[in-house]
């Protein structure tokens, strides 16, 4: 359940949270209490928290005060039921109306939110009682020394106790805080969680109660009208004592720090736990007023008694209380017309109590009735016959309420049963017996009565069974019920007789698998044609059975017609699976049908063996006068089967010889049409292949391989000559495969290992296999020889010309691991130099320079230095950066020369020289040495960082103040071969870079010259 603060919160929003239908409440407001803090006022709902609930003072829309009670602990599931009964009881009991307040329980009373989740909780709305609690009132009167008020309070309390007893109610939690004293002095009980009222008898107890008012064994306290015995005695004693001596309050009351009384009333739990040593008990036992002493003695004794035995001493409050209570009990018993209660309530003390004498005749009647009842019950207990029991009943018992329900039943239903058995009214007899057996079983009936009842029951069962069967219309149910009713002699009407017979006949046949189809159809049709057909329901299964019989009869008729024609095919065509279960089929009919069936099954399966076997039987059949005859086509088919069978027999004989040549010779063309087994067909094919391939070596080897890999490798028996030939060919094949394997794997082996292995494998081949060498084989052999020669030359440091003569690119493709890295590099250099020479001869200067750049060692190129310089000069004259744009623009910090051009992918066009001067520039020297740049004027060399990158280059050069500027732009081709150069970004302005030695010249490309006027642009090409 939600906590107190959650209820506090909900109470502040009655419009949205209260679910009660009363608008007076929903539009009201809870009373608040204000707490002053340094941060300001905090307003909280005013509420009294008890053990189970918190009570809020609530002001309705019209300003009336109401108490709203919310449970903050989980209540039992029957709480709502309890409160409903309590409210009704309070309203009905006049004595209680003055001491309780009416209330309404709302199961869905208020929405309480906790952790963001809403929960609907119950709520009790009741009148708000203005006044003080009993403790507060006692505290006030005692402090005032107001004995009159205290006596008045004590008197009111006694009246309240008597009113509760008169209404047989107990509060369950009598305590100073649960008894309110109205302003006019009337007492009111509040908090009804633990209330007992007679309608709650048998309910589990609610354990409420404060220990300063409760017996030490409160947990064992009974839940009945004595629940309050101890707490009421505590309060009674305390109030009587205080009325006698108000100063007791000053001596024994517990007050808090503010001087307010606690919730106890003189006594505390410690006093009850040890009354012998309680100072309060000692003092009260010496009190001047005798009633105080007696009450104290009673309370002290009660403390020491088990709580179940504690009773409130009403006699101390009223001397006639015992008489009045006894008479009240008697009057209640008489009012209830309860003879047993009357006898119990007639206590000896009433015999001399005048007001009780008028009830004496009623008591006597009760005694007579109870005597008669004892006698009748004895008969019931001893007798074994219903008739005898009924005979012993005394009519004085008519009208008494002492008879139990079972006894009343015995009287009425027993009489009804005996009459019905006499009249053979089975239905009534069974009804009466059923009612009787609820209480007594059938033990009160004699054997004869029981036998009569059993017969009635059986008859009734059969009637019922027949009725149900007719209602259902089910053939089986009707048939069985009819047969049973017939056996029991319960003859139904003539119409029912007919109906039963129809159903019984059909059911008998339909449930017999061997039943005659014609009889079954007859019974089926009898039902269908009967006027009672609508009353019988033939199930789908039964209908199928009848239809099966009909179809089977039709099939039989067709078969017989075919047999009459004597044609084998007609009989086979008249075959029907239904005939398998036909009991009307004659043995000879069945035999002929089987013959036809087998013949055509063999034809269908192309089963010559079966046909040959059937042939003789068919010939005999055709010889008889009524036997089946074969048509010419059937005869032809039979003859074919016989021929094929003979061919097959011969083939089998050859197969048994295991000689391939014999097997091949036994192959008859008819065998191709036959369904030989897979093994037979494979063996035949192998034998035929052997014979055909014998003269062809390659084919014979292929045959032999196939044979060896088949499951029949050991089947054939070859002649010694054949065997020798096969082995020789097999051995040669293995040698050839080894050779081929070497050719496939050896080229990958390093150095001369691969070529040597290839040549060795070739040398090992027998003569007979040389003719199998292909052009590819011979080429590979030649390459192996060349590879060995190349290796030899490399090791001998042979001249480049010799190496070039023997080398082909395919050689290293075939033998990729032939050369080590040194040999390979040497060979590549030789090849590059060869290529360089070829380029020189072909005047391909570009290629020359590219090859020269690819050779890292300068000494290799020494022989070609002159040719390369010539090539560089001639090529440089053709180099020119494309898309050159020049512009001279004024600016605050001096004029700016803006130059842009495009880099192409040409690996030789990687450097551009830009020179400018206000004076006309002299022609640039060719070649240009770095030292000469100083004499030219202003210049800048720009290089592309990548060997073959492209893109746009752009420069913005500050050139000082001028109106005219002479500019030369040209490509630079450095003599950078033999250095292993790679592209490097260099941007120079009057400084030498470190990427080229000072003595290596640059070859200038075609110079692009321009004279720029300030503010103009020029495109150069």
């Amino acid at each position, binding site marked *: 359940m939600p906590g107190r*603060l959650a209820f506090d919160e909900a109470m502040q929003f009655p419009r949205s949270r209260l679910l009660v239908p009363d608008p007076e409440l929903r539009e009201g407001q809870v009373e608040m209490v204000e*707490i002053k*803090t340094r*941060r300001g006022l905090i307003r909280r709902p*005013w509420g009294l928290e008890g053990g189970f609930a918190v009570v809020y003072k609530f002001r309705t829309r019209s300003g009336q005060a109401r108490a709203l009670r919310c449970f903050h602990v989980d209540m039992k599931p029957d709480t709502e039921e309890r409160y409903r009964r309590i409210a009704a009881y309070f309203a009905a009991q006049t004595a209680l109306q003055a001491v309780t307040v009416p209330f309404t329980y709302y199961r869905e009373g208020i929405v309480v*939110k*906790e952790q*963001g989740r809403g929960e609907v909780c119950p709520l009790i709305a009741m009148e708000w009682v203005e006044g003080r609690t009993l403790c507060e009132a006692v505290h006030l009167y005692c402090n005032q020394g107001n004995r009159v008020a205290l006596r008045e309070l004590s008197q009111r309390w006694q009246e309240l106790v008597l009113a509760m007893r008169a209404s047989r109610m107990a509060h369950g939690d009598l305590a100073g805080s649960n008894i309110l004293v109205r302003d006019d002095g009337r007492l009111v009980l509040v908090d009804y969680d633990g209330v007992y009222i007679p309608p709650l008898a048998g309910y589990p107890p609610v354990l409420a109660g404060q220990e300063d008012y409760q017996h030490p064994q409160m947990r064992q306290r009974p839940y009945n009208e004595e629940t309050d015995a101890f707490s009421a005695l505590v309060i009674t004693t305390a109030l009587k004592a205080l009325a006698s001596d108000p100063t007791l309050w000053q001596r024994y009351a517990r007050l808090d720090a503010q001087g307010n009384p606690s919730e106890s009333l003189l006594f505390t739990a410690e006093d009850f736990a040890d009354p012998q040593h309680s100072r309060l008990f000692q003092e009260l036992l010496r009190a001047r007023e005798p009633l105080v002493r007696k009450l104290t003695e009673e309370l002290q004794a009660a403390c020491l008694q088990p709580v179940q035995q504690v009773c409130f001493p009403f006699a101390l409050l009223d001397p006639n209380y015992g008489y009045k209570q006894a008479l009240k009990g008697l009057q209640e018993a008489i009012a209830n017309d309860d003879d047993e209660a009357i006898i119990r309530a007639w206590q000896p003390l009433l015999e001399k109590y005048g007001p009780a004498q008028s009830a004496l005749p009623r008591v006597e009647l009760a005694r007579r009735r109870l005597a008669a009842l004892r006698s009748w019950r004895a008969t019931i207990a001893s007798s074994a016959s219903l008739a005898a029991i009924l005979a012993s009943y005394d009519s004085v018992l008519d009208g008494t309420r002492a008879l139990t329900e079972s006894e009343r039943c015995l009287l009425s239903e027993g009489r009804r049963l005996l009459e019905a058995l006499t009249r053979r009214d089975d239905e009534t007899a069974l009804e009466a017996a059923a009612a009787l057996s609820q209480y007594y079983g059938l033990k009160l009936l004699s054997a004869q009565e029981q036998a009569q009842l059993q017969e009635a029951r059986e008859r009734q069962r059969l009637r019922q069974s027949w009725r149900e069967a007719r209602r259902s219309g089910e053939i089986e149910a009707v048939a069985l019920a009819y047969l049973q009713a017939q056996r029991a002699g319960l003859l139904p009407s003539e119409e029912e007789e007919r109906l039963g017979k129809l159903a019984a006949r059909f059911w008998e046949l339909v449930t017999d698998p061997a039943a005659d189809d014609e009889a079954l159809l007859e019974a089926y049709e009898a039902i269908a044609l009967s006027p009672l057909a609508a009353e019988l329901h033939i199930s789908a299964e039964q209908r199928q059975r009848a239809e099966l019989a009909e179809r089977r009869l039709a099939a039989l008729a067709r078969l017989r017609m075919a047999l009459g024609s004597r044609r084998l095919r007609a009989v086979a065509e008249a075959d029907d699976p239904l005939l398998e279960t036909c009991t009307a089929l004659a043995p000879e009919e069945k035999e002929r049908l089987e013959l036809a069936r087998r013949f055509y099954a063999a034809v269908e399966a192309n089963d010559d063996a079966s046909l040959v076997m059937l042939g003789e039987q068919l010939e005999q059949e055709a010889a008889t006068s009524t036997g089946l005859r074969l048509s010419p086509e059937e005869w032809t088919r039979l003859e074919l089967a016989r021929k094929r069978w003979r061919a097959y027999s011969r083939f089998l004989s050859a197969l048994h010889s295991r000689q391939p040549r014999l097997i091949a010779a036994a192959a008859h063309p008819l065998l191709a049409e036959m369904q030989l087994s897979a093994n037979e067909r494979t063996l035949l094919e192998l034998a035929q292949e052997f014979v055909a391939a014998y003269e062809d070596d390659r084919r014979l080897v292929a045959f032999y391989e196939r044979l060896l890999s088949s499951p029949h490798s050991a089947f054939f028996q070859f002649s010694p000559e054949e065997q020798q030939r096969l082995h020789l060919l097999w051995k040669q094949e293995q040698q050839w495969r080894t050779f081929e394997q070497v050719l496939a794997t050896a080229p990958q082996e390093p150095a001369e290992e691969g070529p040597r292995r290839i040549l060795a494998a070739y040398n090992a081949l027998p003569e007979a296999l040389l003719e199998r060498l292909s052009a590819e084989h011979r080429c590979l052999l030649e390459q192996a020889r060349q590879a060995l020669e190349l290796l030899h030359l490399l090791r001998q440091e042979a001249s480049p010309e010799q190496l070039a003569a023997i080398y082909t690119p395919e050689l290293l493709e075939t033998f990729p691991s032939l050369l080590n890295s040194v040999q390979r590099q040497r060979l590549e250099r030789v090849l590059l130099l060869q290529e360089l020479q070829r380029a020189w001869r072909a005047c391909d200067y570009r290629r020359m320079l590219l090859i020269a750049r690819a050779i890292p060692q300068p000494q290799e190129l020494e022989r070609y230095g002159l040719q390369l310089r010539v090539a560089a000069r001639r090529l440089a004259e053709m180099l020119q950066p494309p898309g050159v744009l020049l512009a001279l623009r004024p600016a605050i910090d001096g004029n700016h020369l803006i130059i842009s051009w495009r880099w192409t992918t040409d690996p030789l066009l990687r450097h551009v020289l830009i020179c400018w001067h206000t004076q006309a520039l002299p022609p640039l020297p060719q070649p240009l040495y770095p030292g000469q740049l100083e004499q030219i004027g202003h210049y800048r060399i720009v290089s592309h960082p990548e060997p073959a990158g492209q893109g746009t280059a752009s420069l913005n050069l500050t050139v000082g103040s001028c109106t005219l500027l002479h500019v030369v732009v040209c490509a630079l081709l450095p003599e950078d071969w033999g250095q292993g150069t790679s592209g490097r970004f260099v941007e120079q302005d009057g400084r030498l870079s470190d990427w080229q030695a000072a003595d290596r010249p640059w070859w200038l490309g075609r110079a692009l010259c321009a004279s720029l006027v300030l503010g103009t642009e020029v495109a150069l090409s």
Partner: protein
Amino acid sequence: MFAEISILEYWKSEHDLNTLEDACALDAGRGLFAVADGAGTTLFARQWAMTLVELFVSCPLLSADPFELDWWLGQARARYTEGLPAPERLPPAVRQKWQREGSQATLAALRVVESEPEYALVKLLAIGDSCLLWRRAGSEVVESFPLRSPAEFDRPPLCLPSQAALFRRSFHRLQEQWLRLGPNDCVMLATDALARWILAGGDGSLTPNQCFELVARQMPSSWQTFVEEGRALRGLADDDCTAVVLTCRRTLSERAILLGTTQSYQATLLQERRRAFEEARRAGDRRRMAVLYGDGTAFQEQDLVILPGEIELARCVAEALDELLWQLRPLLNRADAAEQAALLWQSYAPLLAAEPCSASLRRTLAALGVPGVAVEINDSEEAQPGERPVRGERTE
């Protein structure tokens, strides 16, 4: 580093500002920001939550060390009780509940330790389900601390209690994390309903980043409408919704203000703490010494001489005393309280028997009838009537 700061507060439906149980406070000039959520199941929750955040921005807690937290909560309790009426002036039902349970609140706090043009280094401290959430500039990932996923909000949150007797150093552990914030990074201090909503992606139809962005964009003037729509349409829980949103900026602007820093306690506070420590040392009250010493940071810059092992012993005594009291409290109402308490005392007697800080405990044990508990005469004489140990409560 500069920061644009938004303070967003709105309460549960039906409520108003007076019953808002969240609280937030900040001092951007010192780089201090805090939010707290008072537990609605306890009394004066808002007052406690406000006390915590206001204390943080005036006297920030510098670390999550349990003893440091114990000292800091002592400051908070002093402020809190000052602001409430004396218990005897409270209505009886309120008084009992308040004395029994006190107030509880979660806390999430941020302290700027370094503030440079390009970054700010901050320290985060948190307990319970009030969270700090942040998103880096240009990122769509929302990170959070100390809770990382919506499912973690299902568990009851750990709360800081206002009652000393309910605080356990080993249980009420603050978590801390360092964070380096760059320009345009956004960090948010949020109470549980809002933090959960962001991490869950609203009602599932949004991503955490979208939710974060929606909140970060709000201004105080739009916050009420945003929260009400969120509750009606986007699965925002009907709870108090409080957030402090900081968006870091490299430059000054109309909304951005300079983030200051706090790296140590104020000098006056340090002097007062040192004076109290030396007083406790003179009185031999090791428990109080341990709490006042805290994590020791406050004394690093001072020429206080600490003897070897002195603080370790003080902490052992404090832990033993608090643990014993914690275990003893539920035993006091049992019939066999004396036997149980005697067994308990046996375990701790070697450490506590001669400690002045355990004097009132020993008086309580002796009154219960625990044998062999030494009660010094001075203990009894010194105890004033108003200072007698109250059953079931720690006495200091």
